């Protein structure tokens, strides 16, 4: 039983990282009907931005001196990485997707794959191809509750992800920009007629989705210790499957899908074999596409004339 609880805790923490990344896929899909394949690379760049920000704040010195990295600096690292990723995401939108927005759907899709490959290679060029150890922005402190070992890192991942997702919920439901996003995703021309600047709304969508992916990148670095320029490929794909599982276009769906994929992966690794931890995601993808292609919380598209 404690073993099971242990796995569930790890699964929840991993799943909340997937959920953060899945939100970006689902928001962009909801508004542009585009699968942003470059999103995994935005996640990767976010992780590296956090890495460099922590270095700039002198994390090496703190580590050598055996002192904990101050919390305010850790928060600053998170915010800087989120800002950097938002800048990258909106630049990708402006340079790569906007020019092909009115083209047939295959064109933006291929563009997205191109941007993804470009960023993977640019990442290897700029950051170097070798994995790097993620700096201890948070010092790991394990503690035990009823025989279950929990670390402060797992708890932090869960809490930070939950806080960001709650903030997103308030933003989407409670602000004019959030409303504009929903309006554009339902009916772009009607949204224009309300006076909504659709370009600006799409940009906001990319900015927010990318910032959330960067937060996911830092939490991933904290959790997995190592990062590399290709880390966005597999993790991005898993988060995409999470978005599809939850119902692509649905924000609560992305959260649910992320958590479920995280749990499935952790339980498979724990009870079946660690060798299957990546494969289970794709088994789930195939099952969803066969049994419930609209996803758990997605709606079947019904256009009322």
């Amino acid at each position, binding site marked *: 039983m404690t073993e099971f609880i242990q796995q569930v805790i790890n699964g929840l923490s991993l799943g909340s990282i997937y959920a953060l990344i899945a939100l970006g896929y689902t928001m962009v899909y909801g508004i542009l009907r585009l699968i942003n394949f470059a999103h995994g690379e935005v996640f990767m760049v976010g992780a590296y931005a956090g890495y460099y920000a922590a270095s700039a704040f002198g994390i090496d010195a703190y580590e050598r001196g055996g002192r904990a990295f101050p919390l305010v600096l850790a928060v600053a690292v998170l915010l800087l990485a989120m800002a950097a990723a938002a800048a990258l995401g909106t630049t990708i939108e402006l340079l790569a997707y906007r020019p092909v927005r009115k083209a047939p759907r295959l064109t933006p899709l291929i563009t997205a794959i191109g941007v993804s490959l470009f960023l993977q290679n640019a990442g290897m060029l700029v950051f170097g191809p070798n994995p790097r150890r993620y700096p201890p922005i948070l010092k790991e402190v394990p503690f035990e509750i009823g025989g279950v070992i929990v670390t402060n890192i797992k708890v932090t991942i869960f809490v930070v992800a939950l806080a960001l997702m709650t903030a997103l919920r308030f933003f989407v439901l409670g602000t*004019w920009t959030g*409303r504009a996003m929903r309006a554009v995703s*339902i*009916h772009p021309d009607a949204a*224009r*007629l309300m*006076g909504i600047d659709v370009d600006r709304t799409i940009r906001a969508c990319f900015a927010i989705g990318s910032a959330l992916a960067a937060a996911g990148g830092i939490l991933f670095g904290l959790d997995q210790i190592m990062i590399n320029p290709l880390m966005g490929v597999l993790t991005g794909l898993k988060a995409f499957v999470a978005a599809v599982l939850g119902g692509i276009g649905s924000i609560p769906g992305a959260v649910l899908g992320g958590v479920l994929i995280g749990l499935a992966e952790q339980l498979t690794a724990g009870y079946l074999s660690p060798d299957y931890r990546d494969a289970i995601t794709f088994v789930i993808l195939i099952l969803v596409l066969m049994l419930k292609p609209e996803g758990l919380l997605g709606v079947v598209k019904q256009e009322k004339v």
Partner: protein
Amino acid sequence: MSDLALEIRDLRVAYGGIVAVKGISLDVGRGEIVTLIGANGAGKTSTLKSIVGLVPPISGTIRLFGRDLRGVPTHRIVADGVALVPEGRAVFSSMSVRENLELGSFLKREKAGREARLERCVRLFPRLGERLAQEAGTLSGGEQQMLAIARALMGDPKLILLDEPSLGLAPKLVAQIFESILEIAKSGITILLVEQNTRLALETAERAYVLVTGEVALQGSAAELREDPRIRAAYLGEDPAA
């Protein structure tokens, strides 16, 4: 300041190679109710869409309250005080009636004004008031039409373009919608009404333009056109002798 709300000169609209609007000119004076009538495919919707910038014209000029709209994006045109109630309503189907109305005030967010306009809309369409929390997609066709008109009013426009508000509605509802259009006009809002229901349109409007395959075939006061034998035969389905 121009005394024209809308001034269209030699407007041409095309989709690919198909020219849908072939050089029409049209004026709407401030405070007027003008109707644009014509059969299906005559180019009425294309004209309205090009006014609000949803379809860019290939040539011609459109002036809104004296301002040339060439190259101005839709959200800016709307900010100048025009609202389009589109054909087919285009309500935000998965949002509540209240959210739809609030989005109508996207550019006029100031709370007191927004609430005053909401109250006015509910007085105009009591059925919407009873359904503020209901999802817009579950409204009947007539209620969706009311919502589309009310949503336009929420932006406090000076000019409203209505695209076939009677389309697909039962006669009783049509009468109700047209009563509210007259009421809206009484409050000082200029109206350009596109209709296929020629009889009703000519009863409601002061002036009319008749569009035939992308060209203005006839124009004049509504009273004149009501008596025009060509209109009576072609659009009112009347025996000229009757």
